[in-house]
């Protein structure tokens, strides 16, 4: 099997990996913001619950979380899950986990904002919502971008964890191919794929960072 053939075999899996990555980001970034706001809520019950949720997400392996989401419905509630549920379970697991991390990043950014910005906005008559979305959030995004980049790059690699619940993403295919061909090459191809993927991601994030470089 030539290298090109291996890559061709892996292509379908790559599509799934990219899908996992994109959908997880699109959902966990906004969800993380909502969770961060809940975490900072004055309602002790809500913020306490979210604190607990974040500690679970950060304190247990993502691999285990994926298994709980996938097998949980059957073992806990006796619900028979279909094969299609695999990819959903992976997405739910990734989104819940990454939203928790993003929430903490948002929180650190929001709490680092000087109180003077809120006071100036208040005096100028901005509503609370306007203050947050027009004054605070744009500045927060600039501040947290390097930390977000870190997480996003980790996510590219973490998509490979979906193999634990047999989602047919790239790594799962590479592993199967490696054992059937008794060859190292599928792993080399896989490594190359993740590296190039992250190279593009890092370039994209750098582009956004430069875009936001117009002020200090």
């Amino acid at each position, binding site marked *: 099997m030539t290298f090109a053939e291996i890559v061709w075999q892996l292509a379908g899996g790559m599509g799934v990996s990219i899908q996992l990555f994109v959908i997880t980001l699109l959902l966990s970034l906004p969800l993380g913001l909502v969770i961060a706001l809940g975490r900072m809520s004055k309602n002790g019950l809500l913020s306490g619950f979210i604190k607990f949720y974040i500690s679970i997400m950060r304190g247990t392996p993502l691999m285990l979380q994926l298994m709980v989401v996938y097998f949980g419905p059957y073992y806990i509630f006796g619900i028979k899950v279909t094969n299609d549920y695999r990819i959903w379970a992976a997405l739910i697991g990734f989104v819940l986990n990454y939203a928790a991390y993003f929430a903490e990043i948002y929180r650190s950014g929001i709490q680092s904002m000087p109180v003077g910005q809120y*006071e100036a906005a*208040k*005096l100028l*008559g901005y509503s609370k919502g306007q203050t947050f979305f*027009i004054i605070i959030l744009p500045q927060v995004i600039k501040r947290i971008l390097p930390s977000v980049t870190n997480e996003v790059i980790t996510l590219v690699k973490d998509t490979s964890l979906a193999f634990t619940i047999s989602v047919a993403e790239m790594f799962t295919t590479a592993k199967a191919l490696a054992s059937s061909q008794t060859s190292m090459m599928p792993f080399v191809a896989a490594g190359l794929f993740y590296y190039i993927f992250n190279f593009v991601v890092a370039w994209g994030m750098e582009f956004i960072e430069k875009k936001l470089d117009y*002020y*200090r």
Partner: protein
Amino acid sequence: MSLLKMDHIQKGFDGLDVIKDISVEVREGEILSIIGPSGSGKSTLLRCATLLETIDSGNLEYLGEEAAWTVEGKAVYASKNKLKELQSCFGLVFQNFNLFPHMSVLQNIMDAPVRVQKIDKEVAKKEAYELLKKMGLEDKASAYPYQLSGGQCQRVAIARALALHPKILFFDEPTSALDPELTQEVLKVIKSLSDLHIAMVIVTHEMAFAREISDKVIFMADGIIVEEGTPDEVFASNNERTRTFLGNYGNISMTNVL
């Protein structure tokens, strides 16, 4: 007409009384300076007047309408909507400017008029340029705050506050973060505002400036008003506390200070 009336205001933080029974009134077009040693409660008073802090007890009135009053020794505030409405009659210039760093100078000035007061964008833009001209910053409209000197930032902050047409403009030590040269440049701008007939309440350590610009000067120490009167009265005062604070100041000739 009385724009602001603060009656028997009290405010403490964690049991420490910062303001003990202060009453102040600001009339239309009046320029009032508040001077006094650090920690005397000047800034806290200003923050109470601008609704950034809540008073513990006392009465607060804007344009003859009550914003806060006292029931059984505790301050009660008007509804949020009422406060928001009353709040639009005043503006505040901060010690450290608090410009929005991600907005250009022009955006800083015109965003609130457009977004909050729903003024037409072109009208707001035209007015923003006029204000910038008045501040001597016509060429800085597209600059960002980090590209400006402290004095220029403060002038933008003044323009931003003026763009909302306040009846009272509060200044919280507007030159304390600036070197002497920039201080003069900002004080000149503030002086030039007197022909707009906006009432101004200025907390400042610039004695010459306070003396020259004010209709009334309040000297505060330890949370109370020690003395108030015309600049000449206060600066020539024989009150021991006032004298200690002013030092030799009152005796200095005031010509050509600015």
